[in-house]
């Protein structure tokens, strides 16, 4: 695990919706090879920041750089092709497609011949099974995604993101709506995947998970970072206490 310079950097990122300033000149730099946490009170701009970085929302001002290349106004699929994967706050899978098909959609192909080739390429199917095995849901590969429990869908969503081989994975509330056993499992998985060299940015309200799992925590309030550092220092930071508790 490395906590050196940032693979993802934002400069003066700003976005408003009507009169509401959701992200306000945010300068953020992730620690490369680390598990970065992004926390803050409700409405502090975390998810908007996430959506801007992944191209879902266009910013009003500012820049997003990934590995020193500007990706500010890239469409989401181009952001994905640069090596950034994401999950969603409310788990999203393709409900009427099988688990295996959910995985294979994430395989990137650009040549016409490959696009028109059969979906179930043996090599890709084996790679999909590898990720499903790691998530513990390989026995469900032919089930339709809508038949899975919510926890299983969370694991499938993460597996599909990993199928696209991202270097940076953005997880939006991975512990939301899942039971404690699964939270432990997701935490362990994130640690394993991080040990293999992937950088993570995790938005999460579960403070135990964030403080126990992350190497570096960034705290957002009113659309911009107000503090950052190791979990132990962030926890004691008076600005963070004020933002969360109003004291």
């Amino acid at each position, binding site marked *: 695990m490395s906590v050196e310079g940032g693979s993802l950097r934002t400069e003066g990122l700003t976005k408003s919706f009507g009169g509401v300033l959701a992200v306000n000149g945010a300068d953020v730099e992730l620690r490369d090879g680390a598990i970065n946490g992004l926390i803050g009170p409700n409405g502090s701009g975390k998810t908007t920041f996430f959506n801007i970085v*992944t191209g*879902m929302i266009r910013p009003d001002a500012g820049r997003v750089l990934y590995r020193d290349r500007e990706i500010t106004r890239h*469409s*989401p*699929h181009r952001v*994905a*092709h640069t090596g950034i*994967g*994401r999950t*969603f706050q409310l788990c*999203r*899978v*393709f*409900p*009427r*497609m099988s688990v295996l*098909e959910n995985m*294979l*959609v*994430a*395989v*990137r*192909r650009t040549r016409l011949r*490959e*696009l*028109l*080739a*059969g*979906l179930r390429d043996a090599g890709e199917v084996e790679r999909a099974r590898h990720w499903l*095995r*790691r*998530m*513990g*849901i390989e*026995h*469900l590969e032919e*089930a339709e995604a809508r*038949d*899975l*429990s*919510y*926890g*299983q869908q969370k*694991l499938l969503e993460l597996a*599909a*993101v990993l199928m*696209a081989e991202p270097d940076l994975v953005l997880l939006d509330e991975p512990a939301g709506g899942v*039971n404690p*056993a*699964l939270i432990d*499992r997701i935490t*362990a998985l994130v640690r*394993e995947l991080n040990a293999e060299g992937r950088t993570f940015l995790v938005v999460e309200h579960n403070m135990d998970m964030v403080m126990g799992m992350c190497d570096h925590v960034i705290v957002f309030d009113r659309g911009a970072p107000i503090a950052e550092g190791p979990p132990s220092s962030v926890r004691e930071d008076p600005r963070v206490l004020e933002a969360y508790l109003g004291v």
Partner: protein
Amino acid sequence: MRIASRGLPLLVAALAIAYPWLVPNYYLVYAGALTVMYAAMSTSWNLLGGFTGYVSLGHSAFFGLGAYGTGLLVVRLGVPWVVALLVSAVLVTVFAVGVGIAAVRVRGASFVIVSIALVSMMNLVVQGWRSLTGGSTGLQVPSPFPGLHRGETHMVFFYLFLALLAVALLCWWHVSRSRFGAGLRAIREDEDKAESLGVPTGAYKVAAFALSALFVALAGGLYAVWFGSLDPIFVFSILIGSYMVLMSLLGGVRHLYGPLLGALIVAPAGEYFLIALGETQIHLTATGLVLVLVVLFMPDGILARLTRRRPGPSIPDETADQRLQKVTP
């Protein structure tokens, strides 16, 4: 089961080929050709609507453009009808790429409205450009088979439309098994999610839109040389687009044979009502009513009802957790 699933389509194909020889008169050959034409068009529509979930009510724009393109090339430039048919279809496809780039930027009801606007615009352009198209009086296209009487011409076009249907079905089947098809289905399920996984959804939708327009334009071109008389109000009517939607929804948009089944029901029913009720608007009302009933009570279509999967073993959370405990970290 596998024999049934392969044998039934073969049996239907054999019956379709034999149909003109089995029916007692040429009117039924004509009705058969019309039904197969609609089957080809709704299968083509389903390349967009079925895979991506984008409902176009304006696909008759491509039907009309294919018809007028073919007719004008034959009448104004004296191009052989087969060449005119192919050139016209290619031009309409190129036009559809341009329209698609703009149209698929919006989703849901907005896309439906854009598609309706497209067919209305095309209707106005063709009616307004009298010097080229003949305006509201229409365009007369000479028969490509002057030596054949009307009934024999119906028979020839029955087989031409059947060939077009076969190619459209083959295309749909091939796309459904491909990576491209999986991307299109992912768009139907959750477009933002598909995009975040790296699917270039805009390019995929435009490709599906254009491919769908290609076959509809070919059907329009065949219609032009078959009927020999083009009326802009008919070929650019929303009713034709609505028929494509209705047939696909009724049969089942997620199935290869869904639009074909829908056409086999709707097209003969339409002809029957036309004969039984005369040239009134009642058969149009009946079409609208059926469309509403299908959307309300059978949105997945007949084939989905027939092939409805039995509820499999439930996959409860407890089982997932038990499984997770077994996974070595």
